[in-house]
């Protein structure tokens, strides 16, 4: 379904990230996304960072021109929402390692919430360029997840990419499942590290999206369409998608190295 909603709340999460909350009826599960229409502007895929009840939310990181403009949206403004689309995280594993980079926390936060509600033990390896950019750090803490931080500049947690602590945790700890969302190169490393210790991974993958109906082919990922077969994929599915971690397609369908 599609609806036009009023932005009820705007929360500046990091210097480059805002959450917009709005009332939207349809049921949604952590992992699913919506198409967000900024009326004089573009329509973009965004994971639901708040999925419960009717006060849903998306958390947008300024990546390009449109997302940068979206930081200026104020409560009271109207935006279009259609969805939710796609599949979701299975929240039942007992011990989960979550590896989140950049805006990846947007989709992982509600998933962790769901896992914690079922009594799961969750360790979140959270990475960002710099400390203020660590998205949903407090939210993860409030859920009672164990947090391991990494920043490129060392301003919080370990210095370097989050894949460092993630790989170490995988070697040391004992987990039942690994969830990850973030830059694709990061996710690829997580998949291979988890594979090394025989753990199943669920990756939330991004591709260019237009229809979100499994039709226009914009979001092709190997034999899959991210909008209907994903966005959450298993490591096994990704093994059959030669483009995962290697290339994506731009708006024209042209292959672009990642």
């Amino acid at each position, binding site marked *: 379904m*599609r609806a*036009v909603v009023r932005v009820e709340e705007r929360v500046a999460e990091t210097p480059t990230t805002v959450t917009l909350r709005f009332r939207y009826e349809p049921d949604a599960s952590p992992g699913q996304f919506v*198409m967000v*229409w900024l*009326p004089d*502007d*573009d*329509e*973009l895929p965004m994971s639901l960072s708040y999925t419960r009840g009717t006060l849903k939310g998306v958390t947008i990181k300024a990546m390009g021109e449109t997302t940068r403009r979206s930081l200026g949206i104020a409560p009271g403004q*109207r935006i*279009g929402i259609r969805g939710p689309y796609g599949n979701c995280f299975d929240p039942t594993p007992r011990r989960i390692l979550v590896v989140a980079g950049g805006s990846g926390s947007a989709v992982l936060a509600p998933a962790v919430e769901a896992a914690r509600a079922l009594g799961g033990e969750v360790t979140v390896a959270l990475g960002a360029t710099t400390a203020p950019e660590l998205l949903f750090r407090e939210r993860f803490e409030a859920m009672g997840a164990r947090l391991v931080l990494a920043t490129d500049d060392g301003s919080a947690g370990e210095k370097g990419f989050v894949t460092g602590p993630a790989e170490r945790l995988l070697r040391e700890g004992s987990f039942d499942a690994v969830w990850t969302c973030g830059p694709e190169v990061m996710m690829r490393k997580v998949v291979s590290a988890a594979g090394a210790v025989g753990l199943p991974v669920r990756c939330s993958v991004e591709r260019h*999206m*237009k*229809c*979100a*109906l*499994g*039709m*226009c*082919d*914009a979001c*092709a990922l*190997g*034999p899959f*369409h991210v909008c*209907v077969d994903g966005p959450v994929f298993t490591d096994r599915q990704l093994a059959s998608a030669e483009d995962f971690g290697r290339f994506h*397609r*731009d*708006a*024209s*369908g*042209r*292959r672009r190295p990642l």
Partner: protein
Amino acid sequence: MADLSVDLAGLRLRNPFLLASGVWGESGESLAGAHRAGAGGVVTKSIGSVGRPGYPNPTIESYDGWGLLNAMGLPNPGIDEYPQEIAAARAAGATVIGSIFGADPGEFADLARKMAATGVAALELNLSCPHAEGYGTEVGGTPAEVGAIVREVVRAVRLPVIAKITPNTSDPAALAEAAERAGASAVSAINTVRALAIDVRLARPVLAHGLGGLSGRAIKPVGLACVYQIFSRISIPLVGVGGISTAEDALEYLMAGARAVEVGTAVAFEGIGVFGRLASGLSVLLDELGLGSAREAVGLAHRGAGRGAASPA
């Protein structure tokens, strides 16, 4: 069991169901997927001389189950980037029909040569996109324009050429006749119907481009009228397109005069599995009606139906 195979302008298809242009058509793996799902052949996304991102989003508006409005704006990677996609589709065994769009006969001919070089089995000319500025109906909306483009393309390549025409005209059969006279091997009808949606809360068109094209069940009766009208005015085969989502829909098109059909929007509403369901459904339906093959059904609705007693069983 009824024989589903059909011959279309020299192509032998295992069944009459082709993937329509613009759906699952940008990546070679998707084309291959449609083939694996059971499509008798696959038509590529319409490809131009250079890459185009298409219009900004929103590019789509969906009407629950019965229709879809789109203005993608002919996004495509450009003919030079596209051969690798066709190679992937062909490697999977798909019969690939290459769709192209250009601004004039010369550009069409140039693209046709390049597309032919990729090894496609036939070409489909997009003369009918209702919303792409400088392309589609804007350059192929009259019989004269259709004729000029088809003629140039037929001269340029040895492949069968299918002219895809628009329903947004007073006389679609005149476009088909022009295509036939210019040497087309077949005509496909219809592309989407010019349409618009407005969001009343935002007081503006829903699609970024404003105007778009309607597809899906809503246009089946429109496509059927075009095919039915064209059938008696040309002798080359027809490909029916528009709103097909069941075997019965497809049989309506065959009886109206189509030799094969294309399926687009049903993929969005029912998934790619629709191809398998269409093929098995058509087989059952033909058996039930005592028709031995899909070919036998072609044009059946044109038998002069006099007014007299009720039809025999």
